[in-house]
């Protein structure tokens, strides 16, 4: 057993030759995606009448908006797992922290419209608190809170990563301690005294920046924002993996010891991509909360952390479009299953975990590529 363990990731493609970030086909696809998000979706949702076959329902907008947030997480996971070879089970924590950051602001935006008609959020009134606790100091200000959305998870990831990578914790050990960290945070957030609404979390949001949050145009703005963020992050990731920095990351994934022998210190590289990945997740969380309208500690559970990994794995690690496809495929399947056959959803998800790891190590994208290559070979 020990003999085979030395080659850790046999299925991932070798470091690619750098070229311009995208080919002409790629740019066309990105442009199409931008048009879809910016023009097509708003028009079909807001302007096309409801009876029409082309109408995009509010339900679909909400669902796709939510899945796009998940896709950002999957992309972040791909950067750290697919390209650097570090499996994090703690990305659920960063996602939730971002969500809580946004949620705090949204809670304060409720103002006196809560069920206790107090300036404080309902759960604080319930706990008989008279003033907001210290960590809510900036929650009135949108800008300050958005800075915190990036800063808090980023700082946490930086500190945690610094100590973990410095003592060269790798592979499974890293996965398990990220899970332990997330578990500890979840227990902390479940406590009422922590000041994040205990196990109910935050919900019943009324408005954002003074605008009612539930009206279709607000939802559409959030949808467009999420879509543009996703596309932006995709382009950034695309650029990143082709820089020298990105190539060192892939070298670390394939043979960390050799990278060190070549004179690189992997610490800085790993720490940078780890922090970036955490921040991406946090931003996804902040976009997720106003669209879904609830955030609670279950977002930090071990299950949600592992699910992010499975989106990336199903779509295909080490290809940037793969995780996005994976997030759409798995979550699309989830929303269909939980409506049609709720009791079979976990069977399906479980089977997906098993089958993808056994038969599709490179995910859907890898499978399709293999199929295309075979065809090409047959033709040639």
């Amino acid at each position, binding site marked *: *057993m020990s003999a085979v363990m030395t080659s*850790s990731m046999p299925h991932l493609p070798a470091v690619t030759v750098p070229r311009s970030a995208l080919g002409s086909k790629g740019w066309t696809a990105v442009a199409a995606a931008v048009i879809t998000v910016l023009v097509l979706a708003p028009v079909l949702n807001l302007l096309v009448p409801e009876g029409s076959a082309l109408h995009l329902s509010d339900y679909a907008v909400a669902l796709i908006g939510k899945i796009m947030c998940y896709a950002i997480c999957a992309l972040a996971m791909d950067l750290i797992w697919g390209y650097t070879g570090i499996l994090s089970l703690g990305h659920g924590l960063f996602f939730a922290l971002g969500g809580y950051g946004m949620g705090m602001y949204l809670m304060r935006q409720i103002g006196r419209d809560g069920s206790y008609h107090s300036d404080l959020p309902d759960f604080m009134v319930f706990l008989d608190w008279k003033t907001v606790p210290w960590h809510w100091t900036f929650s009135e200000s949108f800008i300050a809170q958005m800075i915190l959305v990036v800063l808090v998870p980023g700082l946490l990831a930086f500190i945690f990563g610094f100590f973990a990578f410095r*003592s060269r914790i790798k592979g499974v050990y890293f*996965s398990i*301690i990220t899970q332990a960290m997330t578990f*500890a945070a979840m227990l902390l957030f479940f406590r009422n005294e922590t000041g994040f609404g205990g196990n109910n979390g935050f919900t019943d949001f009324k408005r954002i920046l003074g605008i009612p949050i539930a009206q279709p145009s607000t939802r559409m703005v959030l949808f467009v924002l999420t879509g543009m963020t996703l596309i932006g992050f995709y382009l950034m990731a695309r650029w990143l993996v082709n820089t020298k920095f990105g190539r060192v990351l892939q070298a670390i994934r394939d043979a960390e010891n050799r990278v060190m022998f070549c004179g690189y210190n992997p610490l800085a590289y790993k720490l940078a991509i780890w922090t970036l990945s955490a921040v991406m997740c946090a931003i996804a969380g902040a976009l997720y909360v106003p669209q879904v309208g609830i955030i609670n500690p279950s977002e930090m559970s071990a*299950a949600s952390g592992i699910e992010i990994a499975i989106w990336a794995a199903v779509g295909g690690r080490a290809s940037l479009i793969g995780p996005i496809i994976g997030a759409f495929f798995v979550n699309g399947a989830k929303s269909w299953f939980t409506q049609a056959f709720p009791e079979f959803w*976990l*069977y399906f998800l479980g089977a997906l975990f098993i089958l993808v790891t056994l038969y599709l190590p490179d995910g859907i994208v890898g499978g399709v590529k293999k199929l295309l290559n075979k065809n090409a070979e047959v033709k040639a």
Partner: protein
Amino acid sequence: MSVTPLHAETKPAITSRAGRALSASLLTLSLTLALAFAVGPRDAHALTADEAYALSAGDNDARIATLQKLVAKGDPALPAFLDALAADTVKVAGNKAYIVYGDEVKDAATGAPAKLPDGAEDVVNNNRMSSEIEAALGAGKLLSKDVATRAEAIDSLSKAADESKLPLIDKALAAETDPKLKTLLKAVRAKAMLSSSDAGTRIAATKALAEDATPEARALLMERMADGSETDSAVKGSLQLALDKVNRKLAWGEYAGVLFTGISLGSILLLAALGLAITYGLMGVINMAHGELMMIGAYATFAVQNVFRNHFPGAFDWYIVLAVPASFLAAAAVGAVLERGVFRFLYGRPLETLLASWGVSLVLMQGVRSLFGAQNVQVENPAWMSGGSDILSNLTLPYNRLVIIAFAGVVLLAMTLLIAKTRMGLFVRSVTQNRPMASCMGVNTARVDTMAFSLGAGIAGLAGCALSQIGNVGPDLGQNYIVDSFMVVVLGGVGQIAGTVYAAMGLGLINKFLEGWAGAVLAKIMVLVIVVIFIQKRPQGLFAMKGRSAEA
């Protein structure tokens, strides 16, 4: 995933103590009431009409004074009247008291049928009056021949214990033969003395309580200290001394209690982690479904229990003897299937085993939900495992926990022997150390893998069987333990069974000690943080593997 901290695995108590006491006193009340109306009126001749009236009307201090005078006199007619008073069936009109029971009206003093005058008023007893009446009623029962009656009487007496009851208590104490009741009476006596107006008596009380050294004594002393009613400085000093003494005496029991719960938690963690020490430590499979294998063991225990309940109710107390092998075999069988079907193809890719086994755990959980329902199922302790032994006044060791500690020891011993002494253990070690060489020597490595994995799974099943005796059995039973058991294995050092033992016991004890200091959830968080920091310092765990295998 539901978050149940590890220590919250106690079964719910059927009734609270207060509830029991309440229902017991209600029962006595109704019993004595029935008795009183059967025999009461015949004897009700010693009580004068004035006395009956004085007991029923006027201000409370005067009523209580009358009551105590009558109790001291030992009036034979008093209990019946007091029963009526306690049951709110007494009315007063024109300097006379009447007992009204439905349509039947009696003169309280003579017991003769009477006519209720117009404008008769209900007698109202406030809390103080009620407890005085109850204590007075109890006074008679204090000397009863029946132990249970006496116990109830002492219970009701302790609620209204003050100086005036002292002669009564002393009389009862002299007559009391039951040692348990004697200690109870002594506590009541100390309580009564503590509220005495005489400073000397109060000091004597503190000394008696210091000798007593029970948690109740401490509560009494602390109450007296805290409520500020004590003004005499000598008594105050004596109170403080007594409190310190009691605290010192109780501290041993408390430390022993924390130690015991720590060892108990450690033994559970050990059972949960031992199987993982094989599948992860020796084979390198990150089995996230380990908790679900434990759950299968627990459900196997549940199934065996049901078979015994339905078919062999006479042997129900010994179902556990069959449940232990059944839980081992059930989990081992599932483990063998998993190894053959999934993990076999993933050796050497630990991260992939993590994902695949997570999928397995989802399927197993949902499978159990489909088979047994999503609700928790009830697994009952055999009679010999319920209850506990009282070691100290504040330390009770539950039998089921003691059995599990012993069980963990036996499993550990058996597994160590299996790995160290048997042929199969030799094969497992050889394959772990050098697979190609073992294969060349003719070891069927594929079979050894299956055997080793199902051994690890079977031990998880045993852990589940043990857990079913102290906690709830439900589909997400395993989820609560997976993070902890990985912590134990990683902390102990991968591939090190000795390390696993130390890590399990250490984590259990640290967790319980922190819990006493910071509360359950914070303790859990602190333990996780400690483990994370520890792994930063010593990534290879407590007991690092040395030599060639260290890099694997």
